[in-house]
């Protein structure tokens, strides 16, 4: 999909540029924006290092493990199919905590660990469970408390108050996460999303033939 979007932007840009007589501006933009991309990335190094460092202290001090215990009362109702002390719970909380701190790159390994643990509880290995869909929906709705990379970009762009967006971001992220939870819990009841495992169908047809 991103291939279509990316090529579409370039193709349309060059063609429209040629037609509207803006072709010189197109050349300038391509070259100067390539440079801006590198400048912005290098500007991120300090902020990324700060948050990855803080996160490592949280991990080493056992803060993340305590968080897992403290958040049990939220996790159990959200994931009723997952036993409260299953390793999947801890991994999911650690992933969400990393997301809250805006540490996408720290969050992904933890999220993959959580998925691996959830897969152990999955009777149909090629089909997502309700717990997996709920975890993914919460994850993609991004429970962010500190959007570190956004702040870093704002600092690099000389914002007078780079962190002023933290509060509004918390409000927006709460709204999208609540929407995700409501959506996932309602959608999982729809007939079109019901699990139809082949094994169960076979068993019932065997029983049916035996009854005959």
């Amino acid at each position, binding site marked *: *999909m991103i291939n279509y979007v990316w090529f579409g932007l370039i193709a349309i840009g060059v063609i429209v540029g040629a037609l509207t007589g803006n072709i010189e501006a197109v050349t300038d933009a391509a070259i100067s924006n390539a440079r801006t991309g590198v400048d912005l990335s290098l500007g991120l190094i300090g902020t990324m290092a700060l948050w990855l460092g803080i996160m490592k*202290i949280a991990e080493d001090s056992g803060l993340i493990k305590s968080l897992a215990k403290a958040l049990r009362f939220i996790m159990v109702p959200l994931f009723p199919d997952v036993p409260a002390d299953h390793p999947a719970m801890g991994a999911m909380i650690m992933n969400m905590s990393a997301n809250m701190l805006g540490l996408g790159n720290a969050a992904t390994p933890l*999220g993959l660990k959580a998925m691996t643990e959830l897969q152990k509880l999955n009777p149909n290995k090629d089909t997502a469970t309700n717990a997996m869909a709920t975890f993914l929906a919460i994850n993609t709705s991004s429970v962010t408390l500190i959007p570190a990379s956004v702040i870093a*970009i704002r600092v690099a762009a000389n914002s007078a108050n780079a962190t002023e967006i933290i509060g509004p971001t918390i409000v*927006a992220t709460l709204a999208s996460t609540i929407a995700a939870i409501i959506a996932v819990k309602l959608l999982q009841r729809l007939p079109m999303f019901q699990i139809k495992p082949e094994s169960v169908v076979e068993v019932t047809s065997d029983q049916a033939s035996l009854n005959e």
Partner: protein
Amino acid sequence: MFTEIIQKISLYAIPFIILVIPAYGFVRKVKVYESFTDGAKDGFNTAVRIIPFLVAMLVAIGVFRASGAMDIVTNALSPITNLINMPAEVLPLAIMRPLSGGGAQGVMSELVTNHGADSIIGRTASIMQGSTETTFYVLAVYFGAVSIKKTRHALPAGLIADFVGIITAVLVANLMFR
């Protein structure tokens, strides 16, 4: 009142975290300095790893914008975005956000650089970027890692969440910064 509380949270959130987490570690006898530097050494790699994504997207968007094509699209869609008081310039970010994290970061950087981080466009883009995730990417990576092929309701739920996040970002930005 609402604005005041939110501003206070914004002001104190980072100092609070950079005090409390190391303090907790210190009390628990973690070698806080060594832990920090150990974690921080990945900062360079992470930042460098996004260079190709940023360059790719910034160049494509720069070309698209400079050609005048972006103006054509945003003008065409402005009646819709005007309804919710959404700056038309932010629309490409809303469209890009679920598709590509690097791409969205490119669009957001571009908006912040060209319109100013403290403009309504820059602020709306920042809130939008911070409060939504790259749904297609997360789905592909997470489900791909455990060979899930039937994703059921995960994608529609994720997209509904993105939609609500984007609309809320616009509403909150207008409420606080316009």
